[in-house]
């Protein structure tokens, strides 16, 4: 009983600590240049200029979705991918904050992607479920 009470106090303290840290919003739109993992892709496809044209944009969009849907925990049905001459803009929602950066990383790793603009935000699961 004493133990449980002690835990309650520490849980309470944790809640306070966590609440204080909760203010930083990291969902703000940010333009992310292709990072180390994307750099090799740039070398592979980017010896020449990035592919252009509507057909190339559509093909790149499909490749990005195919890469995202490899990750079964991510619902690509709520994610918008728009490709324009190698520049990819992500929009829509994911169910968990960690997926925002993960989807951007996956996108950067797709051959032909030269830059990623990340406008994804979190929409929690319906009915307050986790």
């Amino acid at each position: 009983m004493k133990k449980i009470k002690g835990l309650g106090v520490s849980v309470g303290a944790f809640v306070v600590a966590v609440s204080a840290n909760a203010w930083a919003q990291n969902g703000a739109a940010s333009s992310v240049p292709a990072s180390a993992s994307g750099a090799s892709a740039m070398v592979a496809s980017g010896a020449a200029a990035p592919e252009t044209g509507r057909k190339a944009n559509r093909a790149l969009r499909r490749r990005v979705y195919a890469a995202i849907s490899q990750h079964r925990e991510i619902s690509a049905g709520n994610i918008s991918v728009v490709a324009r001459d190698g520049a990819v803009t992500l929009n829509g929602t994911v169910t968990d904050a960690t997926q925002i950066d993960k989807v951007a990383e996956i996108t950067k790793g797709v051959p032909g992607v030269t830059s990623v603009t990340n406008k994804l935000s979190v929409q929690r699961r319906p009915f307050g479920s986790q």
Partner: protein
Amino acid sequence: MKLKLSSAAALALFASAVHAQSSVTLYGTIDTGLLYQSTSASTFLPKAPNTGSVFALKDGGIYASNWGLKGTEDIGGGYKVNFKLQGVFNSTNGKFGLSDTPGVTAMFNQYAAVGVSGPFGTVDAGRQIVPMIYAMADTDVRSAQYFGSILTAWLGINQAAGWPGTSTNAPIGALYDSNALVYQSPKFYGASLALEYAPGGVGGQIQGGTRESAVLKYSNYGLNLAAVYYNGHDTNPFPLTYPTAGAAPATGLNNNRFYYLGALYTIGGFSVSASYGLGRNPANTNHVDFEMLSGGLGYKFSSVFKVTSGFYYLKDRNNSANHSSEVALGAEYSLSKTTLTYAQVGYVDNRGTMNQTIIYGSPVAPGVSTTAVMVGIRHSF
């Protein structure tokens, strides 16, 4: 904000546990707002009078306030044992939410389930939110929220079918099922399948009180698609005047059937949705046979600000005088990762015996048009 207890803390809490719990999470939400509604009723009875305008502190502008505990234990070989206990409470008065028996609340009315997950998918046993509701939320721009959404539309056909609103045992489809076994498949290229079977546990009646449902979903390329089949026996046994009149005995009567098709597409900041639903009582289609149609449009201005709208139309296939049209518009602004504020407005044009509500838990009188406005705050932990 989720609160993760460490294994050590979990051990202290569950001192008798022999194996370490991999993780236990305590979580929840408090959602409170101010509601103005131009008309009201005290019940869903077919002749309930309009009791006038209402100004109230209201729970659940987005979803009901709730809290829960969930845990996962890794048992090796890619398999995990999972549990979830989750229930709603009313943030304005502290009361627990409805169970499947009128007049009886339940602490864990949303989830009281244990199950196993692995490469085959997930199986959960117990009371749970059924797959059809998630499928509807996934294909509604308003996400089956408590204020003006596919949820209030679906509840509208339930009210028309005789649901008194005093238990979660509904005549058409279900939000929660008790005694349910739910299988969720893994995703294959974005496609997945959910199957539900709930044995009724009725003596001498193998079909008594049973439920079975199937949901096929697709989620890829910015597109969500969902198809729902739901069937139930002996549902909504409680008459409008319960407990004065007693509950109908469970005889295995097949009296609850619901079909639904929905789609939602996201492109750039826009999202658009449409759906069709059909709810009927197979044992009494002359009285209970309803259609619902929806359309939705939303725009995300930034990662912290979005606006959603929806249109919901209900129709009685047995009597064209009974129909209902509802529009809802809402704006959500995130103050932080865990707190958002919202403002929403809805209008419903009810005709005949229809009494579709604008917000869950605030009945309107049949055939009376109503406007509602709500502003509120929703904080998750």
